[in-house]
Every structure is written in structure tokens, then in C-alpha cells.
């Protein structure tokens, strides 16, 4: 057998199990449902905005551990951020997955996804909640 599989380190499993933000908002400013047709991952993301910033976030995520961990991380960290901050973090995660770019200092938790760099088919799983949040934010912006 080859070396240990660091993709499934405890940080990922614990973040996925915590399921921060899992649930539904009573009153959402925007929402989006995104699928990953390759593997069947599904994210239903809702946001409530106040003053252009995320006041509340909720998601229902059916997916793999990477997808669940990413959604849970957003549930834990997204409140208080605006659409440009989420866009910046999404870009940082993309670069981290694609080319092992440095972990942004304000999002040290993204380091847990570094091992996924070696598995391109899993990048979309990891990014799906971030893309869903961006889509929900765009919808919220369009509705304002």
C-alpha cells in the first residue's frame, strides 16, 4: 500500500461533521442551487444581506466530505463578509487547488483543502459551496 491518504485528515472530517450553517433561512435575500453532475453533489445556499454584507447564511448540502467541509466552513466564516470578499476567497481557493498557491492569512482553514490539489476531479466538489454562495449573493444583489 502507498503512503497515507492525507486528503481525509481530521480537520476535513471535523469541519464536515460540524455542518456549520446547515439549515434554512426564514427570510433570504438570495439563494442558489448548484449541482455537480459528475458525482451528484448538490448545494442549496441561502443568504440574508444587511448593509451589503452577509447577515446570515444557511445551506443544505448533499455531497462528499470535501463539499460538506467547504459548505461548513462558509457557514462558520461568511457572516460579516461582502460579495467581493467571498469572490476573493473563492479565487484564493481555486488557486490553492490548482497550483498550491499560498493559503490566505485571513482564511487559514483553507489549508485543509491543500491535499485536494493532487485530485483534479475533486476541485469542483470543494468549490461547489463557494460557487453556490456567489450565485446566491448575485441573486441577492439583483433583487435589491
Amino acid at each position, binding site marked *: *500500500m502507498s503512503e497515507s491518504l492525507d486528503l481525509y485528515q481530521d480537520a476535513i472530517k471535523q469541519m464536515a461533521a460540524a455542518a456549520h450553517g446547515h439549515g434554512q433561512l426564514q427570510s433570504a435575500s438570495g439563494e442558489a442551487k448548484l449541482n455537480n453532475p459528475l458525482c451528484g453533489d448538490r448545494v442549496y445556499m441561502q443568504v440574508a444581506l444587511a448593509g451589503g454584507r452577509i447577515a446570515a447564511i444557511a445551506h443544505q448540502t448533499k455531497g462528499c*466530505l470535501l463539499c460538506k467541509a467547504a459548505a461548513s466552513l462558509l457557514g462558520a466564516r461568511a457572516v460579516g463578509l461582502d460579495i467581493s470578499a467571498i469572490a476573493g476567497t473563492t479565487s484564493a481557493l481555486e488557486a490553492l487547488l490548482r497550483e498550491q498557491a499560498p493559503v490566505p492569512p485571513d482564511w487559514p482553514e483553507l489549508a485543509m483543502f491543500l491535499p485536494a490539489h493532487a485530485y483534479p476531479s475533486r476541485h469542483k466538489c470543494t468549490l461547489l459551496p463557494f460557487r453556490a454562495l456567489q450565485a446566491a449573493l448575485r441573486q441577492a444583489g439583483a433583487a435589491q
Partner: protein
Amino acid sequence: MSEASRLRAEFPLLAANPGLHYLDSAATAQIHRTALDAVAHHETHRRANVLRGSHRLAEAADQAFDSARRSVARFLNARSADEVIFTSGATAALNLVAQAFGATLQPGDRVLISLAEHHSNFVPWQMLRDRAGIALDILPVGVNGELDLAALPQLVTDRTRLIAVTQCSNVTGAWTDVAAIVAAARAVDARVLLDGAQAVQHGPQDVQALGVDFYAFSGHKAFAPNGIGVLWGRAGVLASMPPFLGGGGMIDEVTAEKSSWAEPPRRFEAGTPPIAQAVGLAAALDWMMALDWATIHAREARLCQQMIDGLQRIPGLRLLGPEASVRRAPIVSFDIAGLHPHDVCQVLDHHGLALRGGHHCAQPLLAALGVDTCSRASLALYNDEADVAACLDAVAAAVATLT
């Protein structure tokens, strides 16, 4: 050396990767050496377009292409090689029927498929329904995903023109009772299309004995190259169908005002066909026709049962598929409570196993089985006990890693 080991050595990729346990043949079977060699030989010595030239290379290419068609006809026990249409794959073959046979249907006509179909035998019919105003009926499945043949009398009507079903489920491995489908169709003079994608890697077929009107399969699931597939159609049915794609090779005559069509099969092969791929397919099918299938089937069934028995002992694992009494191909799908198949198959890959996890392009069937996704181990003639044992160990390891 065991028979499976001897066969394994004939597959270049498996020979080059001795540590690999390849259990994803339902997605793509590995290419046999003879097929690979045939492609290389054709491209090295006979590469030219077909039906278009009179130079010696073109003549040689024509002969190779015609010979490939005859090999397919023998593999399917077709009455004539003219009933064999080369396509780019099974999906293209199924879409060809939906387009060309579909063009002969009238609003109000009905097509019956089953809930167990691969998306390639589902979506084209939904598209035809939305385009042509036909009705699409769906044969339900039982709790284990097997076709509910008891529902046939209610769903087959005098407006039913076609029943299009899988010969073998790509998720559960269950073989369809084709005779029951054919009998129901014949009672109302409907045609039958069989999606043989999962069947062909388990041996030669007999379309005359099956009694169907269309049979579709792809080369990459029959130890042959990808980019090649086959639609077999009963001569009289093919002759009644208009072309699907227009272009070179499929015409009788073209004037500035109009065109007339070639006879089948060329009517349905517009443009330059996948020539070398057809030659490779023929080489694979010729090789398969010389094998001892009774022995291979016995081994596949034994390994499949070992897989089922072993997986059943893993806590939290649910097997998807038919009861033991139903004949099945060596395809074993399973769901482990709380674990996503993408993660399971990632860990299995780490242990040297290739399995597919996902919805297997059969979302309606998985929904009926109560899951969004599942993991699937599919066995072929080159697999052996070591593959099964490695899989069982690795699934147990995946559970430990992921929980």
C-alpha cells in the same frame, strides 16, 4: 497461471499496471491487445478514406471496413452485415433511433422505456417527446431496481410504437427478461430496442434469438477502442427510416434541388466513419467469439457472489440490486450509510482499486432505489479472486478512514 491471469496479460494496460485492481469495466472495459494492434496495423498500412477512392490504399481500407461490419454481424448473429450501422458509440446509436425512427412517429404515438435506463436511453426519448408530441411511458421498477414486468399490460397500448429498454442494468447488473418485453411489443405490433451496452463484454449476442428490432452497443465496453459503436437494426425497419445526419456517404444522388438516400446501412453513416476504430472493434469481437464463455460466465458469477458475500458483512453497507434468484451481470453497487461514494472511491483508488462512485448516469433508477449516488464494482473476464479480496479489504479500510 490461472485463466484470468492469462487473460489479464493480454490487456496492455493491465499488464503494465500489475498492482491495479480494475473494477470499472461497466464504465469502460480495458482494450485487448489484438484490438490495439489492429488499430495500429490499420493506420500503418491501410489508412485511407472509405467508399471514396480507387487507389490501392482506399481499396484496402474499404475491405477492412467491410470486413469489420461482417465481424459485428457474426458477433450479433445478424442476418446480414447490411443491418450493422457504425456509430460513435451506444449513445449515438440510441439517439439515431430516437431521431430516425422517431421521425416516423405521429403525435399521440407512445414510446415505452423503463425507470432503470441509463440516461442515454432516457434523455433522447424525453427530447423526442418534447419535439414530436409523442407520449413517453415509463415502466416502473421494484424495490431492488428490477423491471416491474407486471406493469407491462397497463403500459403497452395500441398506440405504443416502440419499447426501448436496457438488456442489463449498469447499476444493478440485473438482466432484463427480453422475451417478456418482446412478447408485449409484438402483441401491439410495436418495435423493441435493446440497449446492449452492458451485455457485450459478457459475450456474443444473438439478435435473432432475442427477437428485437434494434440493438445498440459501444466498442469501449467490448474491449475495443472508444469512438466506435454499433446500431443493429432489422433490415425492414431500417429501410423505413429516414436519415438522421446528412452529408457525404449517405446519399444516392444530390442535385441543387434535392437529395435521395443510400440504402442502409450507409444511409445512417454520414461523413467519414470511424474506420480504424471499426477495425479495432472487429478484432476485439473476433477474439471474444473464440473464447470459452461458459467457463468465463461461471468465473464471473463466482466472483460476483464472493463480492456480494463479502460486502454484506460490512456494517452499514447496503447492496443495491436484485435478489439472488435474478440473473445478473457481475456488477455490484452499494451504499454505505453516512459515506459519500466519491470519498469511498477516492480511498479505494489509494489502495490501488478503480471503482466508480456517483449516479452512474441513472438518476431516475437511483432515486427509485432511495439513494442519490452509490459505489459500483464491475467485474470482467480479466478479474480474479485477488481483485475481489483487495476490494473487500479496501472498502473496510475506507470505512475506517472516513469515519
